């Protein structure tokens, strides 16, 4: 479970408030989508969860452990992170990308091979065919799958995804949505996805958070948003006039 209280980010020296005192909870095993226009603070919020951005105020807990009590690097190692276009390291093979952190942490070699094979099979990429390929030899969808496998290698309880499907074509994106939901029925991770696509958010998210100007305007599921929009902004956003 992720629990966030009074979280904000103020950028000095101009005092720009990127995220303004927000609170939310995401239950274990569920998928939350943060949505909003560019500059609304959704990516900053996500990056504060794994401390790529240090919060100005507030506290973050994952399964009751307080983020601030950890060294930032240690904290990040407990959290899976997937970015747009996967961010696979081009000089490493698929297997090297997936196992990078495990190798740095000096995990058992046999375990590393077995676990990476298991993950490759899970994402539908045969290890014999794909393990030794370089990212440049993969399609966009395959790269994104490897990005997810890399994030899951150390079996983190939560997974953060920053517009993970944004660069994919609609057909690939759709099938990746299905795969992700199917996967999480088994893995039961707590997943936070940042997106600017309302349809994607409603489809994937058990919980959708609409942000604007650093604040959460409305939080709920598709039904809540469509039947009880909190204000005109939400209504416009849901009907597709914004975003």
């Amino acid at each position, binding site marked *: 479970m992720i629990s966030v209280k009074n979280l904000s980010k103020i950028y000095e020296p101009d005092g720009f408030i990127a995220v303004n005192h927000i609170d939310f909870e995401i239950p274990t095993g569920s998928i939350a989508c943060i949505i909003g226009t560019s500059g609304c603070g959704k990516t900053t919020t996500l990056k504060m969860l*794994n401390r*790529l951005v240090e919060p100005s105020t507030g506290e973050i807990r994952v399964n009751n452990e307080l983020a601030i009590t950890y060294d930032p*690097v*240690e904290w*990040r*190692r407990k959290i899976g*992170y997937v*970015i747009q*276009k*996967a*961010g*696979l*390291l*081009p*000089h*490493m*093979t698929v297997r090297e990308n997936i196992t*990078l*952190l495990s190798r*740095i942490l000096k995990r058992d070699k046999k375990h590393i091979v077995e676990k990476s094979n298991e993950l490759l099979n899970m994402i539908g990429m045969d290890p014999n065919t794909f393990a030794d390929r*370089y*990212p*440049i030899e993969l399609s966009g969808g395959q790269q994104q799958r490897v*990005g997810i496998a*890399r*994030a899951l290698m150390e079996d983190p309880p939560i997974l*953060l995804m920053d517009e993970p499907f944004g660069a994919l074509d609609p057909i690939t994106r759709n099938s990746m949505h299905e795969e992700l939901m199917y996967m999480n029925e088994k893995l039961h991770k707590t997943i936070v996805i940042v997106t600017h696509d309302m349809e994607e958010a409603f489809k994937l998210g058990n919980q959708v958070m609409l942000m604007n100007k650093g604040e959460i305007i409305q939080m709920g599921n598709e039904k809540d948003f469509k039947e009880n929009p909190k204000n005109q902004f939400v209504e416009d956003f849901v009907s597709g006039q914004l975003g």
Partner: protein
Amino acid sequence: MGNLVKVLFFFLLTTHLWSKELTIGSKAFSESIILSEMLAQVLEENYNYKINRKMNLGGTKVLFDALDGGDIDLYPDYTGTGYIMLLKMQGETDPQAVYDIVKKEYENRFGITWSPSLGFNNTYAIAVRENDPRFKEIKTISDIIPIANKLRFVAAHESMERKDGYKAFKEFYKIPFDDNKAKGVDSGLMYSAIRDDHADMIMSYSTDGRIKAYNLKILEDDKKFFPPYYAAFLVKEKTLEDHPALVEIFELFDDFISEEEMIEMNDLVDRAKREPKNIAHNFLVQKGIIKGKIKKPQLSKGFIAYTLSKKNYLLKITKEHLLLSFGALFLALLVSIPTGVALTRFPKLSKLVFPIINTVQTIPSLALLGFLIPLMGIGYLPAVIALFLYSLLPLIRNTYSGIEGVNSNYIEASRGLGLTPMQILFKVEIPLAMPIILAGVRTASVIVIGTATLAALVGAGGLGEPIFRGVATVNGNLILLGAIPSAILAIVVDKFWEVLEKKLVSPGIRL
């Protein structure tokens, strides 16, 4: 304590006295090498000395600094050179008066003294082609005034600058030379320039063998412009006190070589391609100074036979060249990679550092060596430092821009994964920047190997040594002996980096 210092001092003094070892230098032309060889051989044969030879050093300034700084103990120079170039005096043309002045001034100012004159005067002489119809009726320098503006005047670089050089000469005789047609070249090259009709008139050395060999005619210095240039050895007074053998040899060498004899010896080296060492030996044997047999000329050889006969020498200078190049490159790598990385971390610093190393890069290599000699003497050290400074720019610049150019997406992904900044540097940034870093290493290698040929001018040896000796003594084989291996070396090293690149750069980013 005081006693200990005295004992120590005495020990140092006496070991210096007992060590019968001297370092002799020479300028980069045949006559200077022959004279130094004579002194070296007498010390070796008759006094059992161990002699370090530092032949073919750059100009007067390099040698004087080397003597002053203690890198060499002796070298031959000319009274006129000391009088005009170093003491910056002029006006006196009487040989004895000039000798007395330079001896006194050098002793007072630098603690350096002049041996008695070796006997011949190697002054400047204006030479033209004997068969050039324009000079048929011309006997003296004053006679050329009517045709002077059409003449192509060529002199050694040193002569273009000296107080008794081109400008003063032109002014003194009021000759209307066209400055655009006056050129400075390496002193060894001006003779072939006039022989092959690339020059009409040269400022020659009066004892150069090529005056006779190339059918040149000397125009009379009718207004007595050129000062006397009598050859003698320069040595610190202290060294002379410590080595009585030198005093004996200097007495022996007093008025020892006539102008005709010197011209003959120079000709044997420059034209007959004899070794200066053998010519000096033969002269000493003929004069009964040392014992031994006259060395006969060997049949002139083709390049391959010549190279094979110089196998050991080639090996030695190649080794020197590699030590110079790789020493400098190794030092530069050690400094540049961390510096390049540091500059990416402190962008403000890069605004300060890049202008400095850019400026160093624009200093001509010879000038840089000139600056370094007073600080570090001659030999390996200044050469390595100069080469090191030259390789800094491509190495630092490429490391910096290679790492700066790494896509921020990869850094972000690595941070998100939980890599420390160091892990990101070594596992992500450097591997991704590797192709650009290696391109810098290749550039630096080619620069260093090429520039290392200039190291010979400051006595650091290397493949430049036969090139400069070859140019100075008009010996094509000798030039090739240095030029071909250094070109091959540059290609081999470039290929080496190419192979290494395949090992160091991931196939994922080579595609």
